[in-house]
C-alpha cells in the first residue's frame, strides 16, 4: 500500500522477529527513532521552535542538536506558516523534513500551507512531486493548559484528502509508525499526546516499521468492540479489565492511524461482538467517532444489536479550572457507562 522511500535502506517489516524487547517511554521511543533515522539518512532534518539546544520543551528532541548539528536540527523563529511551507518546499526538492509544532493548536497558523499545498501538491501537479514530510505535533488536554493548548485536530486533517494522520499511544507503536512516517513519500501528521509521553512499554530491539492502516487488537473480547485512539486506549484498557471481572469482555481496538483507517479490523470485530463503542478525546461534533460509526452502520447495519455509542470530549473550548476540565475530557466512568449501555440492550 505504501512505497518505501528510495532512502530507506532497510526492508519494511512489521516488528522484527526474535528481537528482545526493551522498556522505554513514548518520549524515549520518539527520540530514539529520530536519532536512528537521522543517522541512516542525511537528508532528514528537524525544524521547529526550541527543537535545538533546548531539545524541545518536553525533551523529545534532546541530544539531536548536539549529535547532528545546527545544520540538521534547526531552531526556527516563531513562524508556523513558514515552518510548514518551508518544510514542503524542502520535501519537494530533496530533503525529508520533520517539522515540529510544539502544540498542535498552533498548526492553525500554517493551515493554508498544510491544507492547500502540502495535501494537494502531488495531486495538482499530476503526481510529479514527492512530499516526504512529517509534521509532529503534540495534541491533547489535561494539566490546565486551557482553550488554546489542549486541542486534538485529527478529524480536521483526516477530512483533507492527501494527508496521512497517525495517532499512536504506545512506545512500540510510536517507534514503528514514526519510522514508517519518516520513510513515507507522502505527508504525515504525527500526533503525539502530551499526557502520553511518560507512558512506558516494551519496544522490540532493532529496526522495525509498522504499516499505516493496520489496527491493533489491544485486547480481544467477545461482547463489545471498543475503538479508541491515542491515550484513550489506556483508559479503555483499564475499563475493559474491570468489566472483565463482571463478565463483560471488551475487544479494544486501536486503529493507530486515522487515515488510512483499518475498517476491516473494526468490521470483523463488530461481526463478532455486534456492539460498538468509539472513544476519543477530541470533542464530539464532526469528530472521527461520527465517521467510524457511519462507516460501520453503512457497511454492517444488520450486524449491530444495539445503537453504537460515541464517548468524546464535550463541545466546549477546554476550560482552565481542573474540575471543569475533567468534565470535558472522557474518563473511565464515561467509557464504562457507554459499554454498559450498549450491552444492556443485549436480548
Amino acid at each position, binding site marked *: 500500500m505504501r512505497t518505501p522511500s528510495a532512502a530507506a535502506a532497510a526492508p519494511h517489516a512489521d516488528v522484527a522477529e526474535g528481537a528482545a524487547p526493551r522498556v522505554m517511554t513514548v518520549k524515549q521511543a520518539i527520540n530514539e527513532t529520530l536519532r536512528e533515522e537521522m543517522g541512516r539518512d542525511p537528508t532528514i532534518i528537524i525544524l521547529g521552535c526550541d527543537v535545538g*539546544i*533546548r531539545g524541545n520543551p518536553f525533551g523529545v528532541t534532546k541530544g539531536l542538536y*548536539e549529535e547532528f548539528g545546527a545544520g540538521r536540527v534547526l531552531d526556527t*523563529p516563531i513562524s508556523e506558516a513558514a515552518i510548514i511551507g518551508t518544510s514542503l518546499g524542502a520535501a519537494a526538492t530533496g530533503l525529508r523534513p520533520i517539522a515540529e509544532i510544539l502544540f498542535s493548536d498552533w498548526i492553525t497558523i500554517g493551515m493554508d500551507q498544510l491544507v492547500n499545498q502540502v495535501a494537494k501538491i502531488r495531486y495538482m501537479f499530476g503526481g510529479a512531486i514527492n512530499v516526504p514530510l512529517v509534521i509532529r505535533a503534540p495534541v491533547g488536554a489535561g494539566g490546565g493548559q486551557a482553550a*488554546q493548548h489542549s486541542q486534538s485536530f485529527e478529524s480536521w486533517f483526516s477530512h483533507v484528502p492527501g494527508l496521512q494522520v497517525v495517532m499512536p499511544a504506545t512506545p512500540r507503536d510510536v517507534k514503528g509508525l514514526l519510522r514508517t512516517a519518516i520513510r513515507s513519500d507522502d505527508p504525515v501528521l504525527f500526533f503525539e499526546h502530551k499526557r502520553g509521553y511518560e507512558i512506558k512499554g516494551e519496544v522490540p530491539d532493532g529496526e522495525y516499521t509498522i504499516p499505516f492502516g493496520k489496527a491493533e487488537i489491544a485486547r480481544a473480547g467477545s461482547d463489545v468492540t471498543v475503538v479508541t485512539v491515542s491515550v484513550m486506549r489506556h483508559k479503555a484498557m483499564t475499563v475493559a479489565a474491570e468489566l472483565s471481572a463482571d463478565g463483560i469482555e471488551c475487544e479494544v481496538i486501536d486503529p493507530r492511524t486515522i487515515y488510512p483507517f483499518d475498517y476491516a479490523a473494526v468490521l470483523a470485530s463488530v461481526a463478532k461482538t455486534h456492539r460498538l463503542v468509539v472513544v476519543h478525546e477530541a470533542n464530539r461534533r464532526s469528530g472521527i467517532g461520527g465517521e467510524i460509526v457511519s462507516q460501520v452502520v453503512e457497511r454492517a447495519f444488520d450486524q449491530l444489536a444495539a445503537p453504537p455509542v460515541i464517548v468524546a470530549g464535550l463541545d466546549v473550548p477546554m476550560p482552565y479550572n481542573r474540575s*471543569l476540565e475533567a468534565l*470535558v475530557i472522557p474518563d473511565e466512568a464515561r467509557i464504562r457507562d457507554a459499554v454498559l449501555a450498549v450491552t444492556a440492550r443485549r436480548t
Partner: protein
Amino acid sequence: MAHRVTLSESCQAVEAFERDTLEPLQAPAGMTAEDQRDIYRRMRLIREFDTAVKGLWKRDFIYGLAHSYVAAEAIAVGACAALERTDYITSTHRGHGHTIAKGGDPRRMMAELMGRVDGYCGGKGGSMHIAAVDMGMLGATGIVGSAMPIAVGAGLTAKTLDRPFVTVCFHGDGATNQGVWHESVNLAAVWNLPVIFLCENNQWAISLPYDQAAKNPTVSDRAQGYGIPGVTVDGFNPFAVYRAVKEAAERARSGGGPTLIEARFYRYVGHFVADDERYRDTDCNILWERFDPIGRMATYLAESGLATPEWVADADAAAKAAVDDAIEFAKASPEPSAETLWDGLFSPEFMREQGISL
C-alpha cells in the same frame, strides 16, 4: 552542552545595552511626585504578584502554565501610565503585568489563576488568558502574535466610530516573526489607525536569541518598511517607555496613525515558572539584574528626594500585603460548579434558544 555564542547570549550584550539603549531615569516634564511614586508602587505590585505566583504554582495552587512578568515591569507600568482609562491594551502569554498596570484587581486576577469563580474569567482562562475587559485589558493569549490584529481591530473601531481611544498592542520580540505581525502593522499603517505596537524585546523567545531569529539589529528598524515611526527605548526604564507611548498616543489621537515602539531589556529570569534555562549561560543574568527596574526606581526616588527609605519599605510592605490579601481572597473563592461549564460559549439568548447546558 553545546552553546551558541551570540550577542544576546554572551555578556557582551550587556555592554551594548549600556552603550546604546540604557537611559538615566528622568521623569517626564510635568509628572507629579505622586505619579512617580505610583509608578514604583505598581511595578512593585507586579513583582510581588509574580513572585507569589511562582511559589503558588510550585505548591499546585496554580494549575497549568504561568509566565512571569518579572524584569519587564517598567514596560507595562510606564506604558499604561501614559494611557487613559478608556484606552485599550492587548496582551501576550505574559499578561499579569499588563493586567495590573491597566488597573486590574489583584484579587480577581489571583482568583483566576487559581481557577475560581471570582476570577476575571470565572476560572475558564487561567494565567494564559487573564483579562480585565472592564479596565480595557482585552486579554492574554497563548498563541504568539495572535493579539496583533485584535489591536488593529480596536483601532478600526476608534477610527470608524470617531472615538478618542488608542490601543496599545504589547507583544514579544518572538512575535515579530509571525506573518500576522507584518500583516497587522501594515494594515494599521495603511489605514492610519490609532494603534501603538509595543514590542517587549527581552532578547529571547524561549531558547532562541533575538539575533538568531531576525537580521535587523532592532525591531524598531522595521517600522521604516511600513512607513510608520519606530523607536527603541530602554525597557528597564518606566519613564522612557512612558515618554514614547505618550508621544505615540498623542500622534494616534490626532490622526497620525500607528507607531512601533521597541522597549529593549532582558529576561534575566526563566521563560516560565519552571524553566531551567539550560539553553543559555545564566551567568550573564546577574549583570543584567543591575538594571532591575524596581531597584533603579527606588534609587531614583531616593536620590531625587521623592521618597525616603522608609517610604520605599512601606510601599514594599503594602505591595506584599495586597498580594497576600489577593491570595486569601482567591483561596476563599469557590470552585466553579459544573453548571458553569457552558457559560459564555455563546450569548445567553442563543444558549437559551439552543438549550445548551450540561
